[in-house]
C-alpha cells in the first residue's frame, strides 16, 4: 500500500516537473545559450583548421564535449528531446482544461464570477424584464455576438462569447513544432544528401553521401549535356546552368536546364546547381595554312604539349588571354623550327590571317579555346520535407490565432430590484489583449445604457 502511494507521488512529481512552465522557460533559455556556442566555434572544419586556432588540450576538451559538431551531439539532441517532452506534457496537461472551458461555458453570472471579473457595470431601468432582455439581446447581437438566454428563478441571464478558437492557438503552435520535428526525423532517417560532380557529356548513377563515407544508387542516371556560365560586365558570375538528362532503362525520360534556385526533380530526388569548375586543362584549336590561305590541317593545343607540323616545326601554346591589348582572345605560341632559336608570338582569334605577315611557308591561325567543365550538383531526397512545411504553416497560423484573437465573453444579468425597477449587471472578460477589450467593453456599455426599452 505505502509502496503504491510512494510511486504515485513520485509519478506526480515527475509529471509536475515535466509540465512546469519553469522547465519550459529554462529549456528555451538553455537551448538559446547553447546554440550560441556553435556559432562561435566553427562547426565541422578539418582538424588542421582547428589546430591554427586552438591548443591540443582545448581541442581534446572540445572533442569530448562534441563542440565541433555540436548540433548533432548527444547532449544537444537530449536538450531537444527534453524540449519536446516538456512541450507535449504541457499540452496534455492543459488541453483538457481548455476543452472543459470551451465545452461548458459559464452562461450565468453569479456573485463569485462577478467579483472575479475586471469589467463590471450596473444600472437600473424601468420596464418589463422580458422586453429589456429582448432589446439587450439585439444590442449585444449587433455590437458583439448573439447571446443565449437562460432563466434562473426569476433572473434572466444573457451570455455571448467570441473568438473561442484563440484558446487553441497555443496548442496548434505547440503541435506544429512536434510536426516539424517528426518531419526532420523522417528526412534524416529515410532521406539522403549527396554531392555529384558530372563532367560535360558524362553521367552518374551512384552518388556519394555523408561526406563520401556512404553511397546511394539512384536507380537511374543523370547526364550533364552542357554546362554554361554567364558573367556580368564586371566579371562576377551572373548565372550558371546545367543542361541535364535523366536516363532510365537506356532512354532519356526527362531533360531540364537547371540553374541556381531552379532545381530538377525526378522520383523524389532533387538535383540542385551548386558549383562548377574546369574539367582538365583548356585546349586551343589552331589551324595551319598555306601562304595562299588554304587550310592544310587543324590541331588542338593543350598546355605542356608540343605538336609537330610535318615539314615545318614544333608548336606549343604557353599563354592565353581573353582580351589581348583590346584585340580580343589571343594565344601565345612558341614555334621551334629546325636550326633556328624558338620564336614566341601572339595569334589573334579576331584576325585569322594576321600571322601571314611573317612571310613564312606556313602561317597559323587561332580558332578559339575549348574548356570542358564539370557541374557540381547537390543531390537530396527528403521524404519528410512536406511534413516540415505543414508544421511551418500551422505554426504561423497558430501564432496568429493565439495572439491576434482573444476569447471574449459578455454576461448580462437582469433581476427585479426592491424599488420595482430592473437591475442590470453587465460584465465582460477576455483571456488576452485587455486594453483592446476595455475599449470595446466601454462602447458596448455606453450603447446598452443608451437603448430605450
Amino acid at each position, binding site marked *: 500500500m505505502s509502496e503504491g502511494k510512494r510511486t504515485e507521488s513520485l509519478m506526480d512529481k515527475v509529471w509536475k516537473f515535466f509540465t512546469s*512552465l519553469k522547465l*519550459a*522557460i529554462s529549456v*528555451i*533559455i538553455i*537551448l*538559446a545559450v547553447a*546554440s*550560441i556556442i*556553435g*556559432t*562561435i566555434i*566553427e*562547426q565541422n572544419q578539418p582538424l588542421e583548421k582547428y589546430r591554427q586556432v586552438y591548443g591540443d588540450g582545448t581541442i581534446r576538451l572540445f572533442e569530448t564535449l562534441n563542440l565541433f559538431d555540436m*548540433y548533432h551531439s548527444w547532449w544537444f539532441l537530449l536538450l531537444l528531446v527534453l524540449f519536446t517532452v516538456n512541450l507535449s506534457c504541457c499540452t496534455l496537461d492543459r488541453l483538457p482544461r481548455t476543452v472543459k472551458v470551451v465545452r461548458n461555458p459559464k452562461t450565468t453570472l453569479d456573485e463569485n464570477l462577478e467579483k472575479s471579473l475586471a469589467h463590471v457595470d450596473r444600472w437600473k431601468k424601468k420596464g418589463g424584464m422580458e422586453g429589456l432582455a429582448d432589446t439587450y439581446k439585439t444590442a449585444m447581437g449587433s455590437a458583439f455576438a448573439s447571446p443565449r438566454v437562460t432563466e434562473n428563478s426569476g433572473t434572466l441571464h444573457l451570455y455571448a462569447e467570441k473568438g473561442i478558437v484563440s484558446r487553441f492557438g497555443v496548442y496548434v503552435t505547440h503541435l506544429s513544432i512536434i510536426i516539424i520535428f517528426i518531419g*526532420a526525423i523522417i528526412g534524416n532517417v529515410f532521406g539522403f*544528401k549527396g554531392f555529384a560532380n558530372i563532367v560535360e557529356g558524362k553521367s552518374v548513377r551512384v552518388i556519394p553521401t555523408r561526406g563520401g563515407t556512404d553511397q546511394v544508387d539512384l536507380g537511374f542516371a543523370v547526364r550533364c549535356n552542357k554546362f554554361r556560365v554567364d558573367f*556580368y560586365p*564586371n566579371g*562576377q*558570375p*551572373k*548565372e*550558371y546552368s546545367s543542361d541535364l538528362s535523366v536516363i532510365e532503362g537506356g532512354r532519356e525520360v526527362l531533360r531540364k536546364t537547371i*540553374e*541556381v*534556385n531552379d*532545381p530538377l526533380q525526378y522520383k523524389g530526388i*532533387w538535383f*540542385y*546547381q*551548386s558549383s562548377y569548375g574546369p574539367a582538365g586543362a583548356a585546349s586551343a584549336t589552331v589551324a595551319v595554312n598555306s601562304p595562299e590561305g588554304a587550310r592544310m590541317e587543324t590541331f588542338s593545343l593543350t598546355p605542356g604539349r608540343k605538336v609537330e607540323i610535318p615539314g615545318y616545326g614544333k608548336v606549343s601554346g604557353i599563354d592565353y588571354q581573353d582580351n589581348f591589348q583590346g584585340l580580343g582572345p589571343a594565344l601565345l605560341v612558341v614555334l621551334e623550327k629546325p636550326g633556328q632559336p624558338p620564336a614566341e608570338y601572339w595569334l589573334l582569334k579576331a584576325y585569322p590571317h594576321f600571322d601571314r605577315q611573317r612571310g613564312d611557308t606556313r602561317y597559323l591561325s587561332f580558332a578559339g579555346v575549348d574548356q570542358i567543365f564539370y557541374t557540381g550538383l*547537390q*543531390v*537530396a531526397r*527528403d521524404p519528410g*520535407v512536406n511534413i*516540415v*512545411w505543414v508544421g*511551418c504553416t500551422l*505554426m*504561423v497560423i497558430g*501564432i*496568429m490565432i493565439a*495572439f*491576434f484573437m482573444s476569447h471574449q465573453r459578455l454576461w448580462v444579468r437582469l433581476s427585479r430590484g426592491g424599488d420595482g425597477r430592473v437591475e442590470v449587471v453587465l460584465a465582460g472578460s477576455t483571456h*488576452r489583449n*485587455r*486594453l483592446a477589450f476595455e475599449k470595446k467593453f466601454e462602447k458596448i456599455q455606453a450603447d446598452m445604457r443608451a437603448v430605450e426599452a
Partner: protein
Amino acid sequence: MWNVRLFDITTLLFGVASVNYVVALYGKKETLARIGTWICVAAAVVSTAALGVRWAESYKMGIGRIPVTNLYESLVFFAWSVNLFYLAVEWKYRSRAFGAFVMPIAFGTMLFAFTNESSIQPLVPALQSYWLHAHVITCFVGYAGFAVSAGVAVMYLMKAKREERKVTGGVVQRFPSTKVLDELVYRAIIWGFPFLTAGIITGAAWANYAWGTYWSWDPKETWSLIVWLVYAAFLHARVTRGWHGRRAAILSIVGFVATIFCYLGVNLVLSGLHSYGGA
C-alpha cells in the same frame, strides 16, 4: 545616383525628427513634436521614393532586383520599416513621446548605412529568387517590431523608476501611463514574432529550394533561432506566468540586442552564407 541622394535626404529628415522629438520632450514644446510627425511622414515619402528609384535604377543597369540585397540596402530598408512602424504606433496610441526613443534608432541606422558601400551591385546567382522578397520583408518587419518594443521598454523603465521613487515631474510625465507602455512592449513583440517566424520559415524554404537543405545550423540561421527563442520565452513568461513591467521590459531589450547581433553581428563577426555585410 539619385536614390542615394534621396536616402541622404531621408537621413537628414530622421535626424531632424529625432532632435525635434527629444527637444519637444525635454523642453515641453508640443509644437516641435507635431512638426516631428510631419517630418517623419515626409521621410516616409522620400525613403519610399528612394527605394523605388533604386529599384528602377537597377533595372536601367540591366541587373534589376529588389533593393534589399546588401548591407547598405538592408539598413535603409530597416530604417524605412522602423519609421513606418513608429508612425503606426504614434497614430494608434496618440502619443508623440515614443518618437524620442524610436526615431533615433532609425537615424542611427541611416548614419551607419552612410558608412557603407552604396552603389548597386549585381546579384550573385544564389540570391536570384522570388523567395528573397518574402524572406527579407518578413524578417525586417519583425525586426522593426522588436526595435519599437525595445524603445518603449526603455521608456517604461524610466517611468517606472521615477514612480517607484515617487518623483513627480520630469520628462516621464509626458509619457503614456506605465500600463500603456507595458502593454505596448508586449503588443510590438506579438507583431514582430509572427513576422520573424515567417521570415525564418521563408528562409528555410528558400534554402531548401536553392540547395536542398532547409536547416543547416549556419550562424545566421542559428542566431535567428536564438532570437526566436528569446521572444518565445518572453511570451511564455508574460502570458502564463504574468511577467509584466520591469522584467518584461528588460527581456524585450535583451531580445533586441540579440536581434541586432543576428542582423549585424553575425555578418561582421562570424562567417556564413548570408551575403550582406561580409565582402
